[in-house]
């Protein structure tokens, strides 16, 4: 897959560099053979394989979809508290519930640490922001 894009990319790139734009669009073989001797490797090919992998190290051996927060070892899979206890409505009024998902300084805890599922995390965020607005939770605590 990379080779195909690489070759067409090379043809386009070389077409641009030698200012023969017509050669790149039509009859790619003729345009390629004229200046394709050295095959300039554009950054698209190997750069693509280099790019999205830096997070692959610590994330790999963890293997858990919800689990490790950057650790190398297996964390037990955390389940969403709302899904298991079947809590439907997350209201801004129940501060006790919301406080469990807020850090000491008042920040909202990311879902990879709490194990909440996406839909509930979004509702939770909304509820926390509403309760902050009505002064039930602080915006920034413990100065």
């Amino acid at each position, binding site marked *: 897959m990379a080779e195909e894009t690489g070759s067409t990319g090379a043809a386009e790139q070389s077409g641009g560099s030698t200012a023969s734009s017509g050669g790149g669009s039509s009859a790619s073989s003729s345009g390629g053979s004229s200046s394709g001797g050295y095959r300039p490797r554009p950054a698209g090919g190997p750069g693509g394989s280099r790019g999205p992998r830096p997070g692959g190290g610590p994330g790999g051996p963890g293997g858990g979809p919800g689990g490790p927060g950057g650790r190398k070892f297996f964390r037990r899979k955390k389940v969403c508290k709302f899904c298991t206890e079947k809590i439907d409505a997350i209201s801004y009024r129940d501060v006790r519930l919301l406080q469990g998902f807020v850090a000491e300084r008042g920040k909202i805890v990311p879902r990879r640490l709490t194990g909440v599922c996406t839909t509930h995390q979004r509702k939770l965020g909304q509820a926390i922001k*509403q309760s902050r607005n*009505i*002064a039930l939770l*602080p915006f920034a605590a413990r100065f």
Partner: protein
Amino acid sequence: MNRTYEVMFIVRPDVEEAEIDKLVEGFSANVKQSGGEVKSVEKMGRRRLAYAVKKFNDGFYMLLNVAAEGGVIAELERRLRVSEQVIKFITVRMDEEEKRLEKVKALRATKVKRSATPAPVAAVEEAPAAEAAEVEAPAEATA
């Protein structure tokens, strides 16, 4: 087309209870006049605020459940803003949320009916099959 709203507001702590009642009466009368309905008034009591609002550290929380059109609520909000005793308020629209909760409850009721019959494992998984159970349930209710 009446929408349901939840209005929570904070009254200054140095205001008497009688005055708060008068205030709420005024709001309810205004809502009723414009064709809305105040479903419930709840006094949540004096609470410590998470941060200082207008130099007050605690306030008297009030909760109003109102069913009215949008214009009525806009007028109520304007009054809350203008009133000197109210230091903070938030309005949340609740009718969509209530509809969703009802749907979830109905779905759960049908699931429970299915799990009363043998094969409880199937009942937990099959959410689309719950709709098939809904077809059965009215038939059972009529019979």
